[in-house]
C-alpha cells in the first residue's frame, strides 16, 4: 500500500539521509564492539525502522525528529558523550542536518568566564585562583588591574608570591620543558591543566570551543576519531582532578609552578625576509 503513496523527493531524500546516517553509526558501533551489545542495539534499531516515514522536523515549532533522537542516543550510549542539553531538547534532524553537539568538558576558559572570575576574586577557591594566575601570566588583564589582582590573590589564597613577575613580550611556553620541570616536584598534572585551559590537550572533548569551532558532522571517520578521543578522556580527567587537589592542598604549589613556568618561557624567533 505504501508504494501507492510515493513520498516527495524532498521527503524521501531527508528520510533516506537519516537512514544513511543510522547505518554509518551502526557500522562504526559494529566495528568497535563486534557482536557485543548487538541485542541492545537491535532493539533501538527496530524502533528506528518501525516507521521511517516519521514526520520531519518543523522549523516553526522546533520539533525534532524522533528517529534522529534514537540515532543520537546510540552515539551517546556506545560511541561518545553528546551535549546533554542538546540530547534533551530533541530538536535534531539528521535528515537535513548531520551536525552533532559534543559533550565537551568545559575546562577551556573563555573571555567571558575569565572576566566573571575577575569580578569576584574573593569568592574563588584556591584552585580557582590558579585560573587568575594563568590569565595574568598570559597578559589577559591590563597591568594596573593585574598587579592588584595578583597581590589580592597571593594574600587571600596563599600563593606566597607577593610580587608579580615580569613576563617578556612575544614568547611561548615550551610544554615539554614545563612538564619535565614540574615532574621533579610531582606536579606535572598542572601542565595538563594549563593545556586544558588553553584548549591544546590534543583531545577534542577538552579542546572543543563551541564559540569558534564548527560542529562535528557525522561521518564514519569522525565518529571513530571522536570515540578514540572519548576513550582517552578519563585519563586526562584524572590528571585534571589531581591538579585541582594539589592546588587546594599543597602549600608550595604556586611557587613551584611559577618557577617552572618562567624557566619554560621561550622567546619567539622572528625570521626577517631580506
Amino acid at each position, binding site marked *: 500500500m505504501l508504494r501507492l503513496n510515493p513520498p516527495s523527493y524532498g521527503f*524521501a531524500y531527508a528520510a533516506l*539521509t537519516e537512514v544513511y546516517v543510522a547505518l554509518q553509526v551502526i557500522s562504526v558501533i559494529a566495528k568497535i564492539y563486534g557482536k557485543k551489545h548487538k541485542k541492545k542495539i537491535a532493539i533501538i534499531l527496530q524502533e528506528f*525502522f518501525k516507521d521511517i516515514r516519521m514526520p520531519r522536523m518543523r522549523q516553526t515549532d522546533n520539533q525534532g525528529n524522533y528517529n534522529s533522537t534514537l540515532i543520537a542516543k546510540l552515539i551517546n550510549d556506545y560511541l561518545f558523550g553528546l551535549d546533554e542539553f542538546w540530547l534533551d531538547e530533541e530538536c535534531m534532524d539528521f535528515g537535513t542536518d548531520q551536525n552533532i553537539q559534543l559533550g565537551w568538558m568545559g575546562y577551556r576558559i573563555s573571555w567571558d568566564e575569565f572576566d566573571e572570575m575577575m569580578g569576584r576574586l574573593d569568592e574563588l577557591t584556591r584552585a580557582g585562583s590558579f585560573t587568575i594566575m594563568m590569565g595574568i601570566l598570559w597578559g589577559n588583564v591590563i597591568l594596573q588591574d593585574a598587579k592588584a589582582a595578583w597581590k589580592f590573590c597571593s594574600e587571600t589564597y596563599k600563593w606566597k608570591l607577593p610580587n608579580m613577575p615580569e613576563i617578556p613580550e612575544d614568547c611561548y611556553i615550551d610544554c615539554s620543558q614545563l612538564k619535565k620541570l614540574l615532574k621533579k616536584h610531582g606536579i606535572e598534572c598542572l601542565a595538563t591543566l594549563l593545556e586544558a585551559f588553553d584548549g591544546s590537550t590534543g583531545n577534542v572533548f577538552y579542546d572543543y570551543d563551541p564559540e569558534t569551532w564548527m560542529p562535528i558532522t557525522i561521518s564514519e571517520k569522525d565518529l571513530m576519531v571522536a570515540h578514540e578521543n572519548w576513550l582517552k578522556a578519563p585519563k586526562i580527567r584524572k590528571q585534571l582532578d589531581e591538579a585541582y587537589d594539589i592546588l587546594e592542598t599543597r602549600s608550595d604549589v604556586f611557587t613551584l609552578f611559577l618557577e617552572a613556568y618562567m624557566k619554560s618561557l621561550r622567546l619567539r624567533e622572528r625570521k626577517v625576509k631580506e
Partner: protein
Amino acid sequence: MEEQTTTLSTISNATLTYMLNVQETGQTFPLPASIATDDNLIKRSLASVIPYIDTAKLERSEPKDGVITITVTKTHAPKGAGTPGSTFSPVIASLIASEGDGTNAVIKTFLDVEQMSKQIAGYGPHQILELKKRIEVAFKAGEKQDETFKAVVNALMESSPQAASVVPVGF
C-alpha cells in the same frame, strides 16, 4: 476523355448549391462550390470559425432540389498520442520504450528500504555496507535526476510561448 469528365463535373457542380449545417449550434449557411466539394478544404477554411472542425464528422446529403447539405457533427478526438507519423508520435514512442518508470532513484530506494526496514535492524556488517553503498549510488543518481528535472522545469518556465505550426490532435 479525361478532359471531358472534368468539364462535365464542373458543370454538374455549378448547378448545385451547398449548405453547411453545424449540428451543435443549429446554424446553416451556404458554402461556395469551390470549397464545398472537398472535406479538407472545408476544414481548413472553417478552422477559425468552428474550432473542433478538424476532428468533426462531415456528412453530405443526397442532392435535393439542387441543394446538398453538409452536416458538421462534433466528435470526441483521441487525446495526446495523435496519429501515427504525427510530430508527437516519436515522443510518445520514446516514453513507452523508456526503461525507467520515471521515479527518482532516491524515492525508489527509499521505498525499497521502507519495504525491508524490519530486516535491516538485524543486518550483519556486510549487509549494512552493501545497503550504504546502494544509498550512496541512489543519492548520486537522484540528485543528478533532480537537477535535470529542475533545469527542464526552469527552462520551460523561462521560455516564451510559441504558436504551434499544427493543431495537435485531440486538443
